[in-house]
């Protein structure tokens, strides 16, 4: 962002116009409508009425909203760092193209070709308490079968695991692309200086990776805050609210409880939380890099 080129506005305009026009029309306008919708209610007849802050006041009084906030924060506190560390580890693991590594790279990307709803159904079957192959494996090894999705204290951890199964390969791709963009000369120069692998990683690779890392941090945070397919398809927020993510709360308000004002209020909260986290994540990386 520092010292960019200053050009006549018309040049900048033509670069930005195609994408921003699309974004404005198909995203920003609907978002604006949604933000305003958070201050309205819908009458049965479909009439929209202004209710001011009432949707938000009702959220603050609602224990199920606060449970969702708690579950969502807990989930993200674990899943984001975990996915990024694993993805970074995998990217480093497959960075050097020694024999067979191309095969492993492709293998790690395979789960991202499985759609989210299919991932949910697949893992619902694999982790079924009585007929799932994973419990079959545990039984064969003489271990007690686990409830996974159906256990109040295991469901959220299961969600973290399944989200990571699908996610790590995806985020690895971006980090790998970032690593590939680090000029080779820098690595070689550092090697001649006698720097060890760890030092090279910390002082050469990591600083140059801060922009790709920034992207992955923000994109991963957004993806995980917006995740809800497994909750919708498998756990329905249960058992006992253990997997009631905010996004599921918003979805249910909109499509089951037909309470659009509430749904949009929850969505606004989600947007603000992701935005705030993204701001801090980018800030953090910028200072580290400077």
């Amino acid at each position: 962002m520092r010292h960019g080129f200053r050009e006549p506005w018309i040049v900048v305009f033509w670069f930005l116009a195609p994408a921003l026009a699309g974004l404005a029309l198909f995203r920003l306008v609907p978002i604006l409508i949604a933000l305003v919708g958070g201050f309205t209610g819908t009458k049965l007849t479909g009439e929209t009425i202004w209710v001011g802050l009432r949707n938000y006041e009702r959220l603050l009084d609602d224990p199920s909203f606060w449970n969702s906030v708690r579950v969502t924060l807990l989930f993200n506190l674990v899943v984001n760092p975990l996915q990024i560390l694993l993805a970074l580890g995998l990217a480093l693991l497959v960075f050097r193209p020694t024999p067979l590594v191309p095969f492993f790279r492709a293998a790690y990307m395979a789960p991202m070709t499985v759609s989210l709803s299919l991932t949910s159904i697949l893992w619902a079957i694999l982790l079924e308490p009585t007929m799932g192959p994973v419990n079959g494996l545990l039984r064969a090894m003489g271990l007690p079968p686990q409830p996974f999705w159906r256990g109040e204290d295991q469901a959220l951890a299961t969600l973290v695991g399944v989200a990571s199964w699908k996610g790590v390969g995806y985020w690895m791709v971006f980090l790998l692309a970032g690593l590939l963009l680090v000029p080779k000369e820098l690595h070689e120069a550092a090697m001649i200086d006698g720097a060890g692998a760890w030092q090279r990683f910390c002082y050469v690779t990591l600083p140059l990776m801060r922009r790709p890392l920034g992207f992955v941090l923000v994109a991963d945070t957004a993806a995980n805050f917006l995740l809800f397919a497994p909750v919708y398809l498998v756990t329905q927020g249960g058992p006992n609210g253990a997997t009631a993510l905010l996004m599921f709360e918003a979805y249910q308000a909109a499509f089951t409880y037909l309470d659009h004002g509430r749904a949009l209020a929850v969505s606004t909260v989600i947007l603000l939380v992701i935005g705030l986290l993204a701001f801090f994540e980018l800030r953090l990386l910028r200072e580290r890099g400077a």
Partner: protein
Amino acid sequence: MIPHACIRFGLAVMRYSALVFVATVLLLPIYWLVLASFRPAADIFATAGTVSVATFLPERLTFEHWREAWSGELPRAVANSLFVALTTVALGVTVNSLAGFAFAVFEFPGKRLLFVLVLATFMMPFESIVIPLYVLVRGLGLTDTYAALILPEVASGLVIFLFRQFFAAVPKELYEAARVDGASWLQIWWRLTLPLSGPTIATASLMLFVHQWDAFFWPLVAAPGPERIVVQVAIARNVTLEVANWGGLFASASTAILLALVPFLLLQRFYLHTIASAAER
């Protein structure tokens, strides 16, 4: 020297063990799924709860589910999804890289605010904007067209963000030199930045491709007619409340997975190519 070689050998063994372990965890579920698509309907769940040789190597195989899936609407759905996804990739890489380039290279008033707005577009739950979006697309007369599936997904805040972050890796001095040589900014973007950004373009294409390949809810809302059925909808049609054609589900899902793997394999070659050329540099 021998201890050193030993350490290197040990490290390589550890590295490959880790590679194999991770690959097993990530691939085994997919293997189970693809295998299930070849099992006779009655066998799919028969062996699921108890693990034996039959779990990994089925006793009976059938191509029935595949034949059935492929004689239905799946080929049409695959063709539609491919068309939608590839068009989105072509358009999306172009417009988003232009915008990402502007954010990475230029300095202009209101840049910060504009960038925040771009970021906000991928932080809002899609489900909460789907009704206004549907009203809009209907108002434009686009329902039940390919345009309804493609246009709203071309411009992507996330992809702009990706380009903006990765374009920064191109040294500014190169731009200055090109400007001195009298190149226009469009030429610089096309002849300098894009050729240097192979992996970035490849990953951006993947993002757009996967996004459209996985599209499910929006196609049902915007273009649910049988002529424009997309692949995820064709897959989901196998399971209803009352009858589940698990074999059909797994066969069509395997088709979707294996086809989507192709771009990833292409990406592989692309990466190798980039590394090779980086080494030559």
